[in-house]
C-alpha cells in the first residue's frame, strides 16, 4: 500500500479582486468582484514508503498548497488524499500524528519560547515517551547540532538555526512521513549540507518518506530519486531526473577543440556554436554515441581536446516549467 495517495486533487481559492487606489478600495467595499484562483488543478500521484520525492515547480505553481492539503491545514475543494490510508480531512488528528511538517518560510515553533521549551511542549502534545524522545534528540543533535541553540528563544535564532530547530521539532515524535516545504531557502552552503545530510540519514535509518519542495536544484540532484514537477497547478512530469531528461531534453553536447579553425558538419549532430578553433555539437543520445561522433569528426580534422556535457539540470527544469504555461 502506498504511504501517500492523492487522487484528482483540486484546490480553489476565492479571492476578492481589488481595484487600484483609494477609489477602488471604496468601490470594493460595496461591490466586491470575486475571482477564483485554481491553485491545484486535478493532480494525482502516489508515493511508496521510504521514497524521497522532490516536488518542484515555478513560483505560484501550487506546491505549498498541495503540502498544506496533505498535512491537513487546508481542505481540498475536491479530490482525495490518503496518508497511510486515512484522509486528513476526515480524521486530521490520526493523520498528523504520523506527520512531520516544516515550512521554510514560516516557523512552526513558538516564537517566545526557548527552543528546548518548544520541544518540551511538543513532546507533551505528541505524548512521546522518554526513550524515544532522548533517542531522537540525540540523533538531531548529532546531525543538526541542536544543543548549541537549545536555550535560545526562537525569535533570536538566525534563519539557519531556526530551520534546524524546525526540522528537529518535526522529528521529535518519529513521524513516518516528512513534508518539507523549502527547507533550504536562504541557507548558506554549510547549513544546506547539514540539512541534506539530515534528510538522507533519517531516510536511510528510519525509512521515513520525504516530500520536499525546493527551488535549489542541488537539493534535487543530491536527494531525490524521483521528482514530480508541477506547473500552474498541473503535474507536468513525474519520474526520475534521468528519465525526465531523457524524455524532454535527450541531448548531449560535444565540445571539440581543433588545432585550427574548422567547421565540420555532421548529419546526426547540430553545430550550435563555432568560435575560433572550438565547435559545439549537439546530438541525441539515441541517434549517435559520442565515440562515433568523435571518430567521424576526427577523420576530417585533427582534434586537440574534447569535452562532453550532459543536458544541464537547469535547462531540463526550465523546459519542463515552460511546457504548460
Amino acid at each position, binding site marked *: 500500500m502506498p504511504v501517500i495517495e492523492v487522487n484528482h486533487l483540486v484546490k480553489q481559492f476565492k479571492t476578492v479582486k481589488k481595484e487600484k487606489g483609494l477609489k477602488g478600495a471604496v468601490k470594493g467595499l460595496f461591490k466586491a468582484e470575486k475571482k477564483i484562483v485554481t491553485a491545484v488543478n486535478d493532480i494525482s500521484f502516489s508515493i511508496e514508503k521510504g521514497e524521497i520525492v522532490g516536488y518542484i515547480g515555478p513560483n505560484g505553481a501550487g506546491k505549498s498548497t498541495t503540502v498544506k492539503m496533505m498535512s*491537513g491545514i487546508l481542505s481540498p475543494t475536491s479530490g482525495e488524499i490518503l496518508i497511510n490510508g486515512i484522509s486528513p480531512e476526515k480524521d486530521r488528528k490520526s493523520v498528523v500524528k504520523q506527520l512531520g511538517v516544516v515550512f521554510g518560510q514560516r516557523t512552526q515553533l513558538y516564537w517566545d*519560547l526557548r527552543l528546548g521549551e518548544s520541544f518540551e511542549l511538543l513532546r507533551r502534545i*505528541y505524548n512521546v515517551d522518554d526513550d524515544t524522545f532522548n533517542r531522537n534528540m540525540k540523533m538531531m543533535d548529532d546531525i543538526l547540532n541542536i544543543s548549541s541553540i537549545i536555550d535560545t528563544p526562537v525569535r533570536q535564532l538566525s534563519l539557519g538555526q531556526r530551520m534546524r530547530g524546525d526540522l528537529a521539532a518535526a522529528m521529535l515524535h518519529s513521524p513516518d512521513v516528512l513534508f518539507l516545504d523549502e527547507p533550504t531557502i536562504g541557507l548558506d552552503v554549510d547549513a544546506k549540507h547539514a540539512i541534506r545530510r539530515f534528510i538522507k540519514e533519517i531516510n536511510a535509518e528510519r525509512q521515513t518518506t520525504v516530500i520536499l519542495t525546493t527551488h535549489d536544484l542541488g537539493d534535487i540532484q543530491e536527494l531525490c530519486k524521483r521528482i514530480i514537477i508541477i506547473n500552474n497547478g498541473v503535474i507536468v512530469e513525474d519520474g526520475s531526473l534521468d528519465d525526465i531528461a531523457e524524455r524532454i531534453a535527450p541531448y548531449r553536447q560535444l565540445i571539440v577543440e581543433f588545432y585550427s579553425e574548422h567547421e565540420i558538419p555532421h548529419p546526426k549532430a547540430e553545430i550550435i556554436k563555432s568560435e575560433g578553433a572550438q565547435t559545439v555539437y549537439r546530438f541525441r543520445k539515441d541517434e549517435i554515441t559520442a565515440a562515433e561522433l568523435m571518430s567521424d569528426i576526427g577523420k576530417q580534422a585533427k582534434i586537440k581536446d574534447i569535452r562532453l556535457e550532459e543536458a544541464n539540470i537547469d535547462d531540463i527544469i526550465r523546459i519542463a516549467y515552460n511546457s504548460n504555461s
Partner: protein
Amino acid sequence: MKSLRHYLSVALLSARLSVQSCFEYPAAFIGWLISNPIQFLVAFATIRFVVMEFNDLAGWDYKQLAFLYGVSILSHGLSVIFFSKTWWMGYQIIHGELDRLRLRPMNTLFQFLLGELNIFGITDLIPGIILFIYGCCAVDFRWTLYNTFCMICTVIGATFLRGGIYLILGSLTFWSKSPMHISGFMQEIFNRTNMYPLTMYPRVVQIIFTFVLPVSWVCFYPATEFLGKDSMITLPYGMPFITLAIGILLFAISCRVFRAGFTQYESAGS
C-alpha cells in the same frame, strides 16, 4: 479519560510556558502593570464624582456601584487572560498563522484558547480583584455558602459570556477575510455599560442589553439579586444561574462558530 489527562497536562504546561515567555518582556509587563490599573481607577473615580454630584444613580448609592463595578472588572480580568487572543485573531486568520493548530494532533479550539494564555491579563485581573474585594466590603457582602456559590457562578458565567462573544466576533474574519476590530469595541461596551445600573438607561437600551446583546448579565442582574434591587426583570432568586447558563450557552455557540469558521480557513499564500 486518558485523553482528558493528556489535554490537562498540555494545558498546564502551556500555562507554565506562557508565564515564562511573558517574563521575556519584563518592561512591557511593568508598563501594563502601571497603566492598566490606572485606567480602572480613573473609571472608578468617575463613578465617585458622579455620585457625589447626584447622591445616587437610579437608586444605587456609591457603595453599591463599587460592588457592581468590582464584579464586572473581575470577570473582565479573567476574560483577558483566557480570551483576549480573540481580539487579534483576525490578523492571524488572514496571515495564515493558525496553520500550527491544524498540524498538532489535538483539538484546534483547545490549542487556540489554552495553548497560549495572555499572562499580561494579570494586570487587568489585579485591579479586578482589588475592586472586587473593595466592592464586597463596601456593601458588606455576606459570604454564606449559598452566596459564595452564587458569586462563583456569576464570575464564571460572566467570563464565558464575555469570551463567547469575543470568540464569535473574532471568528467572523474566517468568512469576511478581513479583520474587524469589533472585539475591542465590544470590550468597551461590556466595561462601560456595567459601570452604571442598567435601570438608568432608556428602556430600549435596557431591552437590548438584556435580550439581544446580554451585556447586563455580566454583573448587573446578579448584583440586583445580591443587593435586593429592582430591575426590568423580577425574579425571586436565580439571577447568577441565568448568568452562568447564558455564559455557557454563548460559549457553546462560539465553539460551533469557530469550528464552522475553520472550514473556511485558507491559510496564506506564503
